[in-house]
Structures are given as C-alpha cells and as structure tokens.
C-alpha cells in the first residue's frame, strides 16, 4: 500500500493501516519532537500526542497537505503544548540540562577539537531551547529535518518570506546566545581578510 492508501484506510478507522503509518514516521516525528522539546521524556510525550491527534483528526484530513507535512504540524503543536504544560507544572528552571550529546565516531579530529565540537553541540542544543517557539520550529525543521523553505512554509502555514526571515533571525539569535556563553569565539578562526589587514572596519560596501 502506498502512504496515500494507508492514509485513506486509516481515515476510515483501519488501525493496522495507522500502525503502518506510525512505524513509517515514528523516527522523524520523535527526532523533531526531541529538538523542539529538549528532553527525551517530553519528546516522547509530544510525539505520542502528535500521532494520537493524527488518528483522531484523520477522518477530516483531506489530503490537501502532504500527510507528513500535516504530521509535522501536529508535532510542532504537540511540542508547544507539552512545553507549556511543563512550564506550568514547575515554574522553576530545570537544572538538569538537555540530553547528553553522544560522541560521534567519525574521522580523526584532535581530542581538543573533538571536545570543542562536543561542547558546541551541547551549547547549540541548549541555545535552541532558549529561542522563541516559531524561531526554533523554523530552524529545527530546516537543519534537523532538512525540509525545504517551501515545505516549512506548508508546515507552519506562513509564506516563504516569513520562513526565510524566521530562519535567519533564529540563527542570529542562536549565535548571540552562543557568543554570550563564549561558545563561538575561536571555534573557527576567522580568516584574515583584506579589510582586516588594512585595519578597515568598513561594515558596508558598495556593489
């Protein structure tokens, strides 16, 4: 069965078809929820809620959007709900940080470089959680889910220009957070540029 056929069957109450849809999408939905919620526990809740919303809403899902686009939207909404509930439950800021970032077994960067990269990943994870909801959503959909601007526009139900600016602003805000915590200076040494050598601080250029 194609995804479309599964969707049609599930909309008519076929639980097995829906089970297939869950297994087809659980990885992406869980990943998205984790990056939006920050903690594995919240993410599992949000992912579960998203699928349950999908099950309940399927009879009125008319296939105008792609099923996965719709599912991402439900995941975004469920993540926001979970975060809000969490916030209400304990007004204090959590002291246990986000999930530990596993080491990557790749290549052979120096131990120091590895440590720096690890630290930056951890800082980015933390920083993401400090962004506003729409900024975090846009950036995570782009960077982690690798959706195109058009797909993100469909998920978030905004126009392309808004997607573009949300992603750009999210990056600017994230950078500011990382800079404040000293996570960026010296990570990638800025190449000496012509203007810098001249000592010129010209921050605008005529084209």
């Amino acid at each position, binding site marked *: 069965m194609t995804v479309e056929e599964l969707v049609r069957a599930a909309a008519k109450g076929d639980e097995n078809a829906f089970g297939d849809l*869950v297994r087809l999408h659980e990885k992406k939905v869980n990943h998205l929820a984790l990056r939006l919620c920050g903690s594995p526990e919240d993410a599992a809740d949000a992912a579960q809620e998203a699928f349950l919303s999908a099950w*309940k809403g399927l009879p009125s899902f008319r296939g105008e959007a792609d099923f996965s686009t719709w599912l991402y939207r439900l995941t975004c909404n*469920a993540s926001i709900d979970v975060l809000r509930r969490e916030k209400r439950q304990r007004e204090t800021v959590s002291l246990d940080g986000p999930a530990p970032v596993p080491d990557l077994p790749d290549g052979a960067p120096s131990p120091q470089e590895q440590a720096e990269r690890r630290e930056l990943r951890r800082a980015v994870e933390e920083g993401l959680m400090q962004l506003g909801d729409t900024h975090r959503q846009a950036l995570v959909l782009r960077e982690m889910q690798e959706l195109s601007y058009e797909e993100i526009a469909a998920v978030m139900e905004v126009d392309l*220009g808004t997607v573009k600016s*949300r992603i*750009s602003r999210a990056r600017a805000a994230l*950078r500011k957070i990382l800079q404040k915590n000293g996570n960026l200076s010296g990570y990638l040494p800025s190449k000496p540029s012509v203007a810098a050598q001249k000592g010129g601080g010209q921050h605008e250029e005529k084209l």
Partner: protein
Amino acid sequence: MRRSCEEYEELISEFLDGELSKEEQLALMKHMSGCPVCQKYFDDLVAMHEAMEEMEVPAVPEGFAERVMAQVRETKQDPAPKKTAFRWKRWAALAACCAIAVGGLWAFRGGRKDSSQAAVTANMPYAYQGVPAGDAPEEAGEALDSSAGLPDTAADGMVRSVMREDAAEPDAPMAAAAPAAETPKSTQDAVLENSPPAPEPAAGYSSAKQADSTLLEAEDARNIALAHAGLTAEDVTFTATKLDWEDGKQVYEVEFFSPSAQYDSAERTEYDYDIDAVTGAVVKYSAEKKDLAPAPASTPIAAEDARAKALAHAGLTAADVTFTKTELDWENGKQVYEVEFYTAAGAEYDYEIDTAGEIVRFDYDAESYAPPASAGTITREKAREIALGKVPGASADHITKLELDDDDGAAVYEVEIVYGGVEYDLEISGDTGAVLEFEAEG
C-alpha cells in the same frame, strides 16, 4: 545595489540553505571579502550549522509504536465534518456560485500567489507552465568553487535544493502588497467579541486533549470574510490566509484588498479579518482605505513585453530560444514576470521582470538545461521492476511511492520501498533505466 550588513546576514542564512541565486552569492562573497564582521558571522553560522548536522538522530524510544497503538485502540476518531454544519455555509456556497458564474474560480484556491498566477493565465494564452521554477541544484556548488576566500567546510553538506525566491520583507505581507507612500484615509476597526460557547478546536490541528470538532478550511474562512465584506472573490486579491491562535482560540487571519490587483486603481481598501476557525464567526475585522500614491504610472506590461525585454537583455531573438515559463508572480509584494527559456546550446536563462518592464533579476546558466526527456523510454512498469530488483524479497505491495519527476530537465523515477523495516529510496533514470541513487534507512 547597496545592502546593509543586516541584509547580508539574511543572505548568509539563505546561502547555508542553498537558497541563493548565483548572482546573490557572488554579491555576498564580494562583500565578505571586504567585511570582517560579516565574514565572522558567516564562520559562526557555518560552525552552528555543522554542529546541528552532527547531532545524532536519536533512536525511537523502545516500544513507542506499541504504546501509540495501544492508545489508538482506545480512542475514537473524530467524525468527518458534515457538509451543512453551519448556516454560513450557504453564504459561502452562494459566493462561490457568483464567483464561478463570472469565471473567477481562481481566487478560491490558495493565497495570493495562486490567485495572481491563475488570473494572469486566464488572459495570457501563451503562458507556459511547463518547467517548475528553480530546478538548478548544482548552481550553488559551482559558484562556491569559483569563489576564493571561503572556508572549505562551506562546500560540503550545505548545498541542497536551490530555489529562487527574492528575500521577501518578513511578516508584513499587507504592507508589502501596497507599495510606497500610502496614506490611511479612514480606518474602521471593529472588534466583535463574538464568542458563543465555542466547541474546542479540532484535534486534527492541535493537541490530543482537545475535543470533538473540526476546523474550517482556509477556503471557508475566505468565503465568510468575503460574504461579510459584501464582496466576491472576483473583486479582491488575497494577500494572506493563515491559521493562528488568538486568545486560546484558533482563528483564520484573512487579508485581502479590493479592487483586485488586476485593476489599475489609485486607491484600494484593505481588509483584515479574524474568523473563528471552529464556528466560522467573524471575531474581528478592519477595513482601511489607502491611497496608492504613485500608482504604477504606466500600464503594466504584458507577458509578451516581458519576454521581449528578457530576450533583448540576453541578446537573443525568439527564434533562438524555447520558452519554458512565463508567469506573473508575487515577489516582495510586487508583481513580477518570471520568464525562463533556454537555447539550443543548452544555456538556461531565468529572468524576473517587474510590471514596469524593469529587469529585477536574472540568472544565466551556460549548460544546465537539458530538455525534458522524451517520455516513455522507461515505463512506470519497467521502473518498478528495476527498483524491486534492487530490493530482494520486496514485491509491488512494498512500494510506497513511485513518481515520475523532472529533475533539472531529466525524467527521473523516484521510488520508495518499505520492506523488512527498512526504507529504500531509489532514483531511476527515465531515459536509461539506470539506478541513479540507492539509499536505505533502517
């Protein structure tokens, strides 16, 4: 063109996503070579981008699907919406009939983009709709190679799909749609706290705990707003329809102006509605009359003129080229013609020309255009067979997707097979049947 560093920051962000045109990339490189501030910004963003790329895709929690399915078995689905649930539906139907009667079905589908394009197509018999916009995947990479002074790390991973779309003014579609020097004449703002004991928003669009009811379609919301304003779809140009939360309720924000963009008018009225997405009630609306001070002095040029402009700029004649697209589109709140054509030698041209006849942007690619493959070399059946041959044990039942796609002019079958818990993605050439890509994800 002079840009501020802030604008370059947005370009840098788009560059990372592979969304910049070659021209913009060159402008960005040129600027960065002389601007250490932007270069540092670029370096930082690359570092962040890499950090996010390196993050692991987490394993799905043990027993996740089982838990979901256990819950599903105990949960009833929300019933599909009934057609005649609300009284306003009759209004909507009436408005729809009117619109169809005058041949203006266009405004009902989607936002401003759709409507403007379709409107043009109607009075532009030569419109080419053949090739989807912006299929030029390799472009970003090429420009990178030719530009010095970039960190090498930028080259890998970040060049994805290239899609041409100008940097639009964010979050202000209305403001953008009515250009320059407008003076509010009269503002009528009405806020109706129209809240009957509204049922909860539908689960379909929100969280699981919400109750049994469904949301209106965006189209319904537009029709309600139109009926309320006493207008038909023919009269207006929609600039936005989006679903949003307002005071804990889901509402459609519907924005449009009248008279529609196809008329040359010195003034227009901008409407702004919030429609309760569940009940269809008008929660809030405003209408504002605006002068469009320097309305486009000249009459907008026609599609043929736009093509002629592009040809003149390229130094070619109509006999030299094959047009693949001429479309009126919205860009930064302005209407522009997107004109695309290629020459026999395979050079691809891509123009954006505003309605005053100015070339807003162009793109030239010497070799990337391959004319669409002659259909039928490899049939769907054959593609299916080839794909299944790559996944031993899988049968036609395991194919979840089989689509013929136009990949930069070449016909490519995209096939997805889910078998034994593994998702296989294949790309098969529509010309030769060669497997271009084969990917498996457990």
